[in-house]
């Protein structure tokens, strides 16, 4: 009988595939994981505390920095909470602009998710091909908002600016090209047998467990739970679009990945419908909001579906121009809750596969 010994492997924070500065202390038996202890906080900036020293409008650029890959969705969640607090009516055109910009942000985020996931598995080309389309998305967002990643596009009671001339046509044209590109990724990554062998039946997340651990977003839907806030509790104008919520069956890494892939096709559908509908709506993109925003004392909670899951903003007002407290329910952080049990019994290479399939964003995990 050979006496074997377990050993610790410090996985991160300086590791190429923890998607940032995440750290997992792995206890390994050979290459098999016995225990995994996730440690986060290397990117903590104290956004919630910073928000208390800013006026309501000034918090918006800080929400960008949570999930900087889909900044619009973060802005949107925050302004929705403040609008709920202030009972502001958002003009219809602004809602459509939010949907278009938000879905483009989601597309950019999903492109990164699938690109980096293929990189985690070891295929480099999928990563750069996904970046090619992301670059086009970024260019479009840049034209709309002036920034590429940290958009700060949403404003309380509307959006910063209307679409520039011809921008909607450009988005429409891009959306026409997008399905062909998704087919390409499908051929290169999803259809690849090695990729399937690496991801199928790995990191299985049962639907009950997923619900118990409050996991949301494509990671939840990969397990087959049909819960997408855009369908379940339609906010904004999402009830006017015809789209499907892709679901997985097994809850393994492949299903979570495939959900994102299929969701991209739905994004194309939503954006195309939104462009069609926005053309008939004229009007302002800013609601009637006082110059100094002073919501009445009270609190409000608003949640939206971002690319990572359900982001919730809880804003408490004491009647002053600065929020008394802002709390963010960060989906990336909550999705990590089950990581330890999920990793147990798998190999070191699977650690990367499972972590990548959850699609965490460290800016959001550490807030």
């Amino acid at each position, binding site marked *: 009988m050979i006496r074997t010994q377990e050993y610790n492997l410090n996985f991160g924070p300086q590791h190429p595939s923890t998607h940032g500065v995440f750290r997992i202390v792995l206890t390994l038996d050979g290459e098999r994981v016995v225990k995994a202890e996730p440690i986060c906080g290397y990117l903590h900036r104290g956004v919630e505390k910073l928000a208390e020293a*800013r006026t309501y*409008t*000034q*918090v*918006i*650029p*800080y929400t*960008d920095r949570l999930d900087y890959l889909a900044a619009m969705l973060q802005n949107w969640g925050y302004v929705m909470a403040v609008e709920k607090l202030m009972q502001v009516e958002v003009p219809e055109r602004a809602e459509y602009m939010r949907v278009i910009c938000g879905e483009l942000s989601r597309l950019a985020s999903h492109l990164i998710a699938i690109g980096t996931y293929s990189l985690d598995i070891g295929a480099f*080309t999928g990563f750069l*091909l996904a970046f*090619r389309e992301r*670059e086009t998305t970024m*260019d479009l967002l*840049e*034209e*709309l*908002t*002036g*920034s590429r990643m*940290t958009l*700060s596009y949403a404003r309380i009671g509307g959006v*910063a*600016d209307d679409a*520039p001339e011809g921008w909607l046509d450009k988005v429409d044209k891009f959306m026409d090209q997008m399905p062909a590109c998704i087919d*390409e990724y499908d*051929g*290169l990554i999803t*259809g*690849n*047998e*090695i*990729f*399937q062998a690496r991801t199928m039946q790995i990191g299985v997340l049962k639907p009950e467990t997923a619900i118990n651990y409050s996991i949301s977003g494509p990671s939840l839907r990969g397990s087959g739970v049909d819960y997408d806030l855009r369908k379940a509790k339609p906010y904004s104008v999402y009830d006017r679009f015809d789209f499907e919520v892709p679901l997985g069956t097994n809850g393994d890494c492949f299903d979570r990945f495939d959900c994102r892939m299929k969701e991209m096709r739905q994004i194309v559908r939503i954006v195309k419908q939104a462009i069609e509908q926005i053309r008939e709506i004229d009007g302002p993109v800013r609601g009637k909001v006082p110059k100094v925003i002073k919501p009445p004392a009270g609190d409000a909670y608003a949640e939206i579906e971002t690319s990572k899951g359900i982001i919730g903003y809880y804003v408490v007002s004491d009647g002053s121009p600065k929020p008394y407290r802002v709390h963010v329910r960060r989906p990336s952080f909550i999705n990590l809750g089950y990581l330890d049990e999920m990793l147990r019994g798998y190999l070191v290479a699977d650690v990367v596969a499972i972590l990548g399939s959850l699609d965490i964003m460290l800016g959001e995990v550490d807030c």
Partner: protein
Amino acid sequence: MFGKGLVKGMQITFKEFWSPKATIQYPEHQNPIPDRYHGRFTLDVDKCIACGMCANACPNKVISLQKQKVGTKQYLTNYVMKIYYCLFCGLCVESCPKDALHFSKVINMNQYHFSDIPLVLVQREAPAVTAESEVAASKTSDKEGE
């Protein structure tokens, strides 16, 4: 199954090998910068009334301005942006009531020394106020007051 996906992948990379490339050669060719681009700030000094709205709108307290009263008008003497704290969110530009602060398309703000980083948009002496003009100004203001 069984190698079909593998062959498909090879076909795609082979096709990509011959297809046109997405990159541009940066210093020689540059992407057109859109009009709304958040680049370096410019300040239209003639329009500026030194109200300080931009400084208040800034989430990071980047903008510091000094003004002097010349006659009845506020005269802007110093307008410095600590650009290393700037988030380029555009709230200052949006808050400007006179449309004096703008983004430009300048993206290159690198400096060799740290002391060169702060963006000095205005630095000037307030014009000397002659006694006559001061009197005249006070008169007009009196009239306005009445």
